[in-house]
């Protein structure tokens, strides 16, 4: 039961109120309340789509503009780690969907189990991301803090077909890495928020909060988690894959 319901129904311990404790008074019935909350959640997610969409648009335009720098920059990412993280996120979306199913079926322990699995996979993703960021730092690929274009002006033994860039274009790899950090950083922030919310959900699910009829919270959190997965589904090909052959 949420705090609003507790505030409006202090007597609910003695029970036998005329409607269910999690129906708020400004809704006619549970169906309307549920529909409203899903609608609101989707509106929020649409603002998120616009937000990440701006970053994607910036990436596409700058990629056309400083094409050789973007190709050279993306060759510095590890496709293996990126693909692993993509698989981890897809697994976590699956465990989250199964969690929502468990809540629908009112299975308390399976719900807690699926949420814990999602939490674990979210942490694995963030751990791999931290390894990748650390590698960027060591290679001096962090614009503004620790950057050197030197590596791009010489022939890279890992990419013998990559021609060394002229110095001015080599400097433009900073645009690529800035966008890389902005996009994956905003995505990672969303993951951190998601993982934090998940911890709360696990605790409350253990107490039976979502398996006695009320489960909108779990379902809406699921929408958020899947959305973050979708953002990564686009980040992975754009940042890691599409320049492999140019």
């Amino acid at each position: 039961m949420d705090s609003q319901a507790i505030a409006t129904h202090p007597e609910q311990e003695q029970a036998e109120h005329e409607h269910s404790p999690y129906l708020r008074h400004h809704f006619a019935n549970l169906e309307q309340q549920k529909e409203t909350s899903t609608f609101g959640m989707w509106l929020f997610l649409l603002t998120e789509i616009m937000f990440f969409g701006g970053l994607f648009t910036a990436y596409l335009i700058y990629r056309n503009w400083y094409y050789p720098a973007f190709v050279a920059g993306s060759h510095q990412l590890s496709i293996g780690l990126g693909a692993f993280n993509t698989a981890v996120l897809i697994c976590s979306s699956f465990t989250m969907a199964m969690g929502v199913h468990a809540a629908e079926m009112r299975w308390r322990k399976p719900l807690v189990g699926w949420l814990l699995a999602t939490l674990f996979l979210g942490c694995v993703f963030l751990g791999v991301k931290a390894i990748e960021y650390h590698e960027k730092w060591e290679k001096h690929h962090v614009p503004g803090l620790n950057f050197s274009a030197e590596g791009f002006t010489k022939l890279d033994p890992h990419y013998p077909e990559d021609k060394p860039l002229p110095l001015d274009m080599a400097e433009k790899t900073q645009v690529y890495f800035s966008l890389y950090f902005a996009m994956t950083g905003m995505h990672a922030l969303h993951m951190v928020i998601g993982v934090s919310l998940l911890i709360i959900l696990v605790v409350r699910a253990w107490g039976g909060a979502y398996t006695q009829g009320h489960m909108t919270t779990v379902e809406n959190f699921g929408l958020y988690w899947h959305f973050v997965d979708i953002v990564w589904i686009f980040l992975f090909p754009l940042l890691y894959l599409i320049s492999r052959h140019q």
Partner: protein
Amino acid sequence: MSELTQKEILDTEPTHHAEHIVSPRVYGIIFGTLLLLTATTVGASYVDLYAFNVVVALAIACLKAVLVILFFMHVKYSSRLTKLTVAAGFVTFFVLITMAMTDYISRAWGMW
């Protein structure tokens, strides 16, 4: 599991797909498809398709996103209001990105 009483049924928040709780089997199939598509997109990136590397990668990403939205996010089983909201959002996003790209491409029209 014991049968729900009439009161419990009335007090249960309806899922949008009350008549249709998505079965774990559907989730499993979608999950497998998503992993398969991920492997495909990684494999395709190692094949030199020239300009089509981008097209293939984005097409696969869009397909994966649609699968997640329709099944994991239950839009396929949702009310018309939810479907309309989601569709309107993506159409607006597409219009904005198209206008931005059109402007960008046509700025230097005829100067190359």
